[in-house]
């Protein structure tokens, strides 16, 4: 059985990351933006795992664990902020949350 070459994984990772970026920039719904961030994080995770496998080293896997932990924490804090915003604004549109400026 021939192994899948690493470039395949990396291309997939880059595509997922690119989709995340595009969604992050162009979507208006905060929840969707949140999901776009998760998508980018996991795209990176995929690249880490691919490299770890290719080089037969554990470093990449360790990093993936860290990223998952941070992503979980970020999701908890982020969703809490989203709930507060919704309670105050009754809207999920990010364009309306623009008071923090000059």
């Amino acid at each position, binding site marked *: 059985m021939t192994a899948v070459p690493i470039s395949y994984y990396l291309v997939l990772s880059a595509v997922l990351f690119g989709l995340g*970026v595009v969604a*992050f*920039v*162009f979507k*208006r719904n905060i929840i969707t933006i949140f999901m776009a961030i998760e998508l980018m994080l996991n795209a990176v995770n995929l690249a880490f795992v691919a490299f770890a496998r290719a080089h037969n080293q554990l470093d990449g896997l360790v990093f993936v664990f860290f990223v998952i932990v941070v992503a979980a924490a970020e999701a908890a804090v982020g969703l809490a902020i989203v709930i507060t915003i919704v309670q105050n604004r009754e809207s999920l549109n*990010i*364009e309306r*949350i*623009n*008071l*923090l*400026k*000059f």
Partner: protein
Amino acid sequence: MLLLDHLWIILALPLAGAAINGLFGKNWPKSAVNSVAIGSVSLAFLAVAELVREFSLLGADQIPWVKSYFTWITAGAFRVDFALRVDQLTIVMLLTVSFVGMLIHIYSTGYMEHEGGYYRFFSYLNLFMFFMLTLVMAANIVVMFVGWEGVGLCSYLLIGFWFLKKTAADAGKKAFIVTRLGDFGFTVGILLLFWTFGTVDFGEIFAKASQHPVGTGILTSICLLLFTGAIGKSAQLPLYVWLPDAMEGPTPVSALIHAATMVTAGVYMVARMNPLFSRAPIAMLAVAIVGAATAFYSATIGLVQTDIKKVLAYSTVSQLGYMFLGCGVGAYAAGIFHLMTHAFFKGLLFLAAGSVIHAIGGEQDMQKMGGLRKKIPVTYWTMLIATLAITGLPPFAGFFSKDEILYSAFAGPYANTILYGVGLAAALLTSFYMFRLIFLTFFGEARYDEHKVHAHESPKNMLVPLVILAILSTVGGWLAAPKLLGGEDYFHNFLGPVFAAADKLAPAVEMNEAAAHTLELELSGLAVVIALIGFFLAWWFYIRSPKTPDKLAESLRGPYTVLLHKYYVDEIYLALIVRPLLWISTNVLWHGADEGVIDGAVNGTGRVAREAGGQLRELQSGNARSYATWVVIGAVGVTALLLGLWRVVR
């Protein structure tokens, strides 16, 4: 040998007096301020007296006596010690300064009794004594410069003592700024001196100068530059304008600083540097010409002034001119001799004038005086003695000193008949304006309001200094009297070692002693006749036919007006120097350089930062998606950069 080993005591005493009065005197009673001020200068005088006694015991090889206390400045080869020097010239100056200074301190306790800022006045006066003694005792030209500038500072403070009066404050500034012009030359002279000889110490400079050829350009430049400083400090042409204005200060200040001591610092400096000056004949000629010209010029202005202190101020300028004439023709000892006698009689004239002003309630205009002879007899007699001394009538002090200068100008090693003639003419004018002052003040009808003003004699503490100075003005010249009778000149012999180098260089005078003596007698006879003519003219004009001056002023309206306005020199300086300078300062330096360039640069920097900030803050729109876009652009940029770098490295 207490004081020879501890010369600093002489300086420390007045400095301590100044510090104590300046720091604590404000709330003290006048008697306490008096005892500190007079106590410190009297002790300083006693210290000088003891120093003279110890000095007289020194062997000839121990003179000059130099004491170095600490190294003040070292920078590479440049080294300045705080060192003091005592030689015969220092002794003469120390005695004159400390004694006249002490008398004027005592006089001031009477004159300033009703004035505000009493402690401040005495603090400044003591500080002045400190700096003047520093100047006189300095063993190198840098320490001398400290004293030189210090007395200038005290002069400024004391001229502007009544600083609420605008004219007084302005006069103080004028004195400071005008003397600064001269000091610029003096500073450059010091630098050039160091550059040439590699040292600032007098002893080393004189030793090296004696190896130097006569009349080189560098030596002439040094002497002319140093003399520029003397022109400013001693109020010679063309920088004399500050001294008449300095009369805005209290009269004791005029007596101490602007007659007896500070203004003579220039003469002292030239005499001190005699080994240099005598090797620069061109500079000596310049000194003599400036001196003679000033002596004559300011005497002409003195003829028509009506303010009693202004007459004395122009007279001081004129007498300082005589001293420079003496130095310029190589008769340094005569110059210093005249400096000493002048300190006595001009100090006395100012103090007596102060007594007159005090007597009639602050009036200085001689046209509003008159007939005071009977009212204030002590002032009258002492002032008359001083007048006889300044006009050069025997046996008063001025006769001997002025005679010696004129004799040297006529027959000395650097004799110059024209300068002698100018000096003699100035003597005639001096005699005229001084007797005019006496006649206008003390004779004739009282021209002040006798019902309002009760002329009264001054208190004892003012009269005692007058009497002492009157005695000195009489006997002060007798040191040189034996010479006139064919004997020794003690003063000249005493100072001899200081001027030995200069005397050795002077061209020999082809004259046997008997002929010289006859000539001297003839010349002094001529000087006396001249002085008597001046007296007679003044008597004719102001006693015999008092209408004549007015008629003369009417018929000679042009010259009279020019003299009355002091040759319009102040106006000319205003138009030629002050106004253009002010214009350049305002339009070029202020509005152009300061506002345009400097403010422009500073404000421009601020404006650039503000504008840039104004543009950049637009980025913080509050829109999270635009931030996201920037982050992405940034990430792409950094990635591209890293990849590019990666390429380059590989």
